[in-house]
Every structure is written in structure tokens, then in C-alpha cells.
């Protein structure tokens, strides 16, 4: 027996995490709320829905040249939207790049939060532990911004967090301390992933739920690129001219059997 909480098809209705889709959710729940339910297994509060909507908008970085989006466009160039969409999502489930990485950033903050313990209100203790944590790690997921000085999404999130009064919540404060030390000691900018990890931990999500949630609500960027690329079916996406390729592999050689046959 495999238990499932996700859904049940009933005669005349459907249940989604225990809620009637047609009598409870219809007209009440938003798309991002449904995605929240997919990751968290429960309906969001109004506050959570607001946070998820803000995260979805902030994470909308949809330039089709960005690596995973580009790979989705390559696959979709044969006309299949969903093939491209699925392909672009597949490499996301890891700790290096993309929305799934948010959970790994969150895990860093969970570890730091555990060290800080009940000294969370003590700014000096948080700062000292953030410094020690940073120095104990070779790499902190969420610190470091490629190609630019600041992650514009983090800057926007910071403003939004201040405007909504979420800046005194524990994980946000911890990430502020960690980000400050990363800037000072490592000259590292703060990536959106660290900020999002903090915001979502402060909502009560676990790191794994955060990976799933941020990826789920970030679907618009993958879908939009795959859809457009499938519609375009651009020949230059399907194949670049030969002269766009530099070959650096082994030099031409003859196989032993070909040599033998020649003799």
C-alpha cells in the first residue's frame, strides 16, 4: 500500500491535499497557492501566499541565454514544448545552479541557526557565529554573484523584506550577518538563493520543501522559453554551422584493424 496525500478522484469532485477542488479551492486559491500546497502539503495562509507570489516574481529571470533555459530551447527547437520544458528542469535537481539550489542555501542557514541557538537576539553572537561558519566552509551556497557586483533580485528581495517587516525574523537576520561577512572577508556578493532560503525558512519550510517550492513556482521561466522555442523551431537552434565548432579531441588516427586490412 502506497500512501498518498496529494489527490483523490471522487465522483463529482477531486480532493487536493484534503481540500475539495470544486467546492473549497475554486475561486479561493491561486496558482502559486496550489504550488505551495504541492511542496508543503497544506494550504498557504494569506501571508504565505503573498510571500510565494513575491518569490515567484523575484525569481523571474527568463533570459533564454541562461544555461538551463538555453538547453530547454535547444530541445524544444524540434517543436516539443514539454520536451524542452522537461529537459530544462532535469539538471536543476542539484546544489549548483537554479531554483532547486535555494534549499541548499537554506540548509546552510539551518546549520548556522543551530549553532546560534538561543542567542538569536544577540547581534554580536550572530555576527561571531556567522564569521566562524563562513571561515569553516570552503564554499557557502548562496554567496557569490556571477557576472555582476550585486544580484539585483537579492537587492529587490531585501527591500521587499524590509517593507513587509520580515527583517527581524531569525533566518533573515542570520543571512544578513552571513552575507555581511561574505562581502567583507570574501568579497562575495549575496545571491538571491540565500535571501530566499532565509525568507522561506522563516515561513516554516524545510530546506527540501524550499527546493521544491522555489522550483515549482519558478516554472514560468522554463515554460515560457520552451514554448517560444517550440513555436519558433529555429533551424539555428537545431544545428549550428560546422565552423562554429573547435575540435580539441584526439588527432586523426587509423584503427588497428584498418591498418591490418590495408596490408
Amino acid at each position, binding site marked *: 500500500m502506497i500512501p498518498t496525500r496529494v489527490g483523490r478522484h471522487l465522483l463529482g469532485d477531486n480532493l487536493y*491535499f484534503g481540500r475539495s477542488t470544486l467546492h473549497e479551492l475554486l475561486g479561493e486559491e491561486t496558482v502559486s497557492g496550489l504550488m505551495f500546497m504541492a511542496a508543503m502539503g497544506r494550504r498557504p495562509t494569506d501571508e504565505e501566499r503573498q510571500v510565494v507570489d513575491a518569490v515567484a516574481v523575484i525569481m523571474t529571470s527568463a*533570459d533564454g541565454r541562461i544555461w538551463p533555459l538555453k538547453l530547454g530551447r535547444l530541445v524544444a527547437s*524540434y517543436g516539443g514544448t514539454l520536451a524542452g520544458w522537461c529537459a530544462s528542469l532535469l539538471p536543476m535537481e542539484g546544489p549548483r545552479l537554479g531554483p532547486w539550489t535555494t534549499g541548499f542555501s537554506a540548509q546552510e542557514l539551518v546549520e548556522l541557526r543551530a549553532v546560534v541557538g538561543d542567542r538569536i537576539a544577540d547581534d554580536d553572537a550572530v555576527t561571531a557565529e556567522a564569521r566562524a561558519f563562513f571561515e569553516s566552509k570552503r564554499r557557502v551556497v548562496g554567496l557569490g554573484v556571477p557576472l555582476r557586483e550585486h544580484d539585483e533580485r537579492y537587492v529587490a528581495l531585501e527591500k521587499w523584506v524590509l517593507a513587509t517587516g520580515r527583517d527581524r525574523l531569525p533566518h533573515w537576520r542570520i543571512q544578513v550577518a552571513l552575507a555581511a561577512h561574505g562581502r567583507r572577508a570574501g568579497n562575495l556578493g549575496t545571491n538571491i538563493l540565500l535571501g530566499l532560503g532565509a525568507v522561506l525558512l522563516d515561513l516554516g519550510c524545510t530546506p527540501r520543501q524550499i527546493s521544491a517550492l522555489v522550483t515549482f513556482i519558478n516554472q514560468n521561466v522554463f515554460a515560457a522559453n520552451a514554448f517560444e522555442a517550440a513555436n519558433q523551431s529555429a533551424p539555428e537552434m537545431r544545428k549550428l554551422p560546422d565552423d562554429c565548432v573547435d575540435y580539441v579531441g584526439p588527432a586523426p588516427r587509423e584503427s588497428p584493424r584498418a591498418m591490418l586490412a590495408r596490408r
Partner: protein
Amino acid sequence: MNMLKDYSGPLDAAEWPQRLTARVVTPGAAPRLHGYDVEGDLARHYSFAEVVLLSLTGELPTAEVARAFEVALKFAAPAPVHEAPTHAAVLARICVASTSQMQGVAAIALAEQARVLVAEHRAWIEVLSGPIARVPRECLAADLDDRAAARRLRVALHGTIDVPALTHDLSRAAALVATLYACGLTTADRMECALVLARLPVAMAEALATPPGSHRQYPVQLPAMVYTEDSAP
């Protein structure tokens, strides 16, 4: 509202290579694979299994290694319908998927299956890199069927290469991993590639043999799924 008339951003400001880099296949009308002429040399003198090994290892195998690799591929090939990859491909067929969609489904699931199988044998792969002092417990034959399968693999490999690991009382999967390792696929990623390659045609064959759209002939209750509103899944 469009405040950004200038569309240049960080991706435009950075320096990037202007060309793709090929490390295995030469572009152009007469492709070479790791340096060998595909159409004038490999196609005439080598089997597909040998070309696969060349692709994955960068070097042509000996004839004995190639025969052992073929044996391993054949042992890896069965992808029965009750295992998730073929089951998923069959379901794709039932959903009236195109062949490419079915292959995509099968390939993803086979790749996941291979990833897990290889991960479960990570300790074994490390052991295989040197003299075998001890076989990890999870690699030992679990029952008579397992033991018999490993023995059949040893028999099938006769006259190819010596795989010393097969003298141990191994499970079928551990014996297969040891054979792939002996064929030069010494890393997890290459081993996973070989497993997917071996199984994809079989999974597809099962899917293609399924009538498209046969929803009512599919056992939807298998395995049983029970709906619960318990808070913890």
C-alpha cells in the same frame, strides 16, 4: 511599461567564447570519433559495442574486452514491465505519447534506475579498483537465483576476459558492475551510460507492443495507493 530601452545586461557585458568545443566528434562531412574515421574505418571494422566502448573510454577495446562488454550489455538488457522505467514507458504509450515522448520517458527513468544501481554499488566500485580483500555485504548473492545468474554471467564470459571479482559469491547486479568495470568503464557516469544504452531498446520494445490508448486494459490499482489526510506523508 518599458524602462529599459537598452537591452544589454551582464550576459552581454561579459567575455564569452565564440565557438563550441568538440572533444569527441569532429564536425563536418566525414566525422571522426576520438580520431577514428567513422564511415571509412569504424563502420567497416568494428562492432557497435566496440564503438560504444570507444565512445565512453576514448580508446578502442581489444576484441576480448569488446566481447565481454557485449555479454554485459546483454545481461543488462532485460528491462521488464514491472520495473519503473518500462512501466513508465508503457504508461506513456497508453497516454498515446509519440515515440519520442515515450523514449524520453524511458530514458529518464532508465537513467534514474542506473544512477541508483551504480550508487548502491559505490563501495563495490572502489573495491574493484584494487585487489579484492572483502566483498561488501550488499554485493553478495541474496538467494539461489541471484547466485545462479552471476554464475551464468561467468559462463557467458568464458573466452573473453578474466574478471577476478566473479570468483566471489556475488549478486547479479554486483557481477554485472564488476564486468563493466573490467571492460574499462571504471567510473560511475560511464557505467550508468552503458546500462541505459543496454536497456532502452528493450523498454521501448515493451512500450511499442502496448496498444496506444488502452487505458481500460491497464491495472490502475497496481500497486495500491491509499489516500490519506494524515499530516505527515
